[in-house]
């Protein structure tokens, strides 16, 4: 395998370029700020800032000011729009971008240039200098100037916006996964410790090991809780409404991976020989032993129940009707069995408390 990392070289090249671009961006931005402030001033002087109606003389004044900030390109030499290549005609007239002064078309579909109210531009710029600009006088900007000034802002805004629900839930799933993988080795170690303890104790005669047993119980309980939480989040993802096909695919794949993870992660739990650890203090308390056994069995059965539910869900979604009926039947039987075990467990626990 050969993987060559070019990131550093790439970043260096980008850095070298970034300075040049930053200068262009600052220049363009400064021009826009100057124009916005100037136009605002002229509008305020004339006494109407947001009426949306400008007299000819006022417009003329503003135009003159705009051309003081940036020289307008001579339009007579251009036959076509520099961006879209459309020919200029009586109906497709030439326009000047107020920020760079270049000649462009005003085709509303192609958006080579657009008229945007000053107050909207100021709001998008979102810097203190132009906070006070409230004139709705429309300023024509070409696509390139808009890109230079606003696209990075838009990009950052998009990235900072709250993530969609499916991705937030996915992050929760991932957190949950990390907790499970942190706890799983602890559980395995405790289980192994129980086994070893058991063989030692058998040699030395029986002694109480309920401390480590309780620990094991707690860990197992915590694990089970994590799994059930994971499953709950998965169901929430499943229930999300998606607007587009792409989003739907994203969601489906997220759910698919989540259920595959459950299958993978629970496998060692199922293979573990719980009874060996659990039967250990059989002589000491038959009841307590049965409680543990019951708990263990319930644990296993609940895992199975979850798997079955998943299988059933999948079979239903794939419309494998031939599988749905037996799966449902199995699930019902299993649920009934679990209830029966729970009842017995409750009874035994009550008895033991009394002792």
């Amino acid at each position: 395998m050969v993987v060559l990392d070019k990131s550093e070289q790439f970043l260096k090249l980008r850095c070298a370029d970034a300075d040049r671009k930053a200068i262009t961006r600052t220049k363009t931005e400064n021009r826009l700020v100057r124009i916005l402030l100037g136009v605002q001033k002229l509008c305020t002087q004339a006494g109407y800032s947001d009426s949306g109606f400008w007299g000819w003389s006022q417009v003329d004044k503003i135009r003159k000011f705009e051309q003081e900030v940036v020289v307008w390109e001579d339009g007579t030499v251009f036959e076509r729009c520099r961006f879209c290549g459309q020919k200029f005609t009586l109906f497709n007239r030439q326009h000047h971008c107020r920020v760079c002064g270049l000649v462009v078309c005003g085709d509303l579909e192609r958006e080579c240039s657009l008229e945007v109210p000053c107050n909207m531009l100021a709001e998008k710029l979102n810097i203190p200098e132009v906070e006070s600009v409230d004139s709705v006088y429309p300023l024509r900007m070409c696509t390139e100037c808009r890109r230079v000034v606003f696209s990075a802002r838009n990009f950052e805004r998009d990235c900072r916006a709250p993530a969609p629900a499916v991705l937030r839930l996915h992050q929760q799933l991932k957190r949950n996964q990390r907790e499970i993988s942190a706890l799983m080795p602890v559980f395995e170690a405790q289980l192994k410790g129980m086994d070893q303890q058991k063989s030692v104790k058998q040699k030395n005669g029986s002694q109480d090991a309920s401390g480590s047993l309780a620990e094991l119980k707690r860990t197992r309980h915590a694990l089970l809780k994590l799994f059930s939480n994971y499953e709950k989040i998965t169901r929430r993802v499943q229930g999300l409404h998606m607007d587009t096909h792409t989003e739907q695919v994203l969601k489906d794949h997220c759910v698919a991976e989540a259920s595959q993870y459950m299958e993978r992660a629970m496998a060692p739990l199922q293979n573990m020989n719980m009874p060996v650890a659990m039967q250990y203090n059989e002589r000491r308390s038959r009841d307590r032993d049965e409680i543990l056994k019951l708990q263990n069995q319930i644990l296993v059965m609940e895992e199975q129940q979850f798997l079955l539910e998943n299988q059933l869900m999948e079979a239903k979604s794939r419309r494998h009707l031939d599988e749905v009926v037996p799966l449902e039947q199995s699930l019902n039987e299993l649920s009934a069995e679990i209830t029966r075990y729970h009842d017995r467990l409750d009874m035994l626990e009550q008895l033991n408390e009394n002792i």
Partner: protein
Amino acid sequence: MSGLLNEVTLSYVDRLVEDNGRAKVLLLDSDTTAILSLASTQSRLLRKDVFLIDKIDNYQRQKMRHLDCTVFVRPTSASISSVLEELHDPKYGKYSLVFSNLLRKSQLERMAEADDYSCVERVQEMLLDYLKINTDFFHCNVPIPWASSYQTWDTEAFETCSESMFAMIASLKIGKPQLRYDINSSLSRQFVQKLGQELQANSGILPSSNKKGQNLVLVLDRFNDPVTPLISHWTYQAMVDELLGIVNNRVDLHLAPDVPPSHREIVLSQDQDAFFKDSMFLNFGDLGAAVRDYVQHYSSKSKSSEQLETVADIKKFVDMLPDFRKLQDNTTKHVSLVGELSRLVSEEHLLEVSEVEQSLACSDNHSSDLQSIRKLIALPNLSPVIKYRVVCLYGLRFRTNSQFQFGQLMQALKIQYGDNALDSSVHTLMKIYSANKFPQEDLFSQGSLFNRAQLGLKGLRGVENVYTQHKPLLESILSLLVRNKLPIEKYPFTAPPNGEQELGCVLIFVIGGVTFEEARVVGEWNKLGNTPKVILGGTDVINPKKFLRVIEETNWS
């Protein structure tokens, strides 16, 4: 057998996508789509939270700036343009750019310049630039290597193949291997020269060899053995390709009757399908028995889970349900596939055809062969491609015979089918081999081309029968090569060989396309755990249909 290419490609796939727990989109071009579909599975990518896969040149993609994006493309000018386009208006928040081969400096510069939003976080060259079919078999996805004659390379094909081979050599960690070529093939000579230059120029990034012994690249020319791609083969993988066509390890069964809808498109991959791994080189007779055993194995398992009476039964059933379902799925798949093969064998009269082909290839019975061919031509429902194929074999085999009836046979076909592409490709092939245009020293003297092919690796295969007499030339070349007896006069080195005699790893590359039959030769060699390890590649994978079509589509002057 240690996973040769499987191991390599999997470790690439694991490196491709970062395991950072963030949801990702993966953007590919058509080259890398094929590369990746052969190297990985979707569930493997899902594990790394790749939830969307799309084409880099699909500009309709939805903007989702909270997603991370991994781009994996071949550094072609088209794909680089698409990357630039993407960076100009990034649809996602963060980018990893991974390229399947070395980037030019100017390409890196243009991308850095386009990254206005500083959204690129990682740029890597990952030398995974070949299509892995089996663990010891790959190709470059270049159907036509020739320009105007069989002696000149198409410029673009030349670049693609040498880049691809460079990537292969680098990822195999065989250092700077020795290069050998076929003295009769100028294509192979040009290719090793180019390869030598590339290896020299980029020796800094070639990992040193981790294998004992001398590593070797041997470049061959398809035109040195036109017989293998013209006759029917009877091993599983080769048959599926000839009769149904394998594209990126996928088989399209849409046209097959009696195939359940779930198996209209199936995947035949050595590393994902244990049954296929064991049976891919079985010949058709043994295959039937293997499938029957497989079905029995499945039904014995299914019986044990039929009675779900107690909770314990259910538990057991649920435990093995995923495996069980996989097994069921796979059994159905192979039953469907082998059933369809049997149907095609009888529909296409393949036993009769094969008998004639084998006789043409391996014995000297001009008059009886001629008679059999006439019979085949007269069969109304035999597909034209088979008829032309057989006549083509006849033409190559008996062109020096005084009773040569090639013209008549072709005329008979013309009456049936008129002017057509097959007709002209057969004539083109004949032209290449006539008038000593193809400078093979003894290729056609007394049918030595055919006799030579018989000196195969003896004992490599079990049961010989009338349908499997012919052995590809590659088999005898390999047999000589591994015993260090491949004549240097015919297959010279580009640089004088050093003292080391023992071969470590051998990379054989066939210009003009390589067949699954040849992949079988190499696969069986490796399966025995022999050294040297052999890896086989070609400009493309071909079968009889494809071979004739490619001949037709080349612009021979």
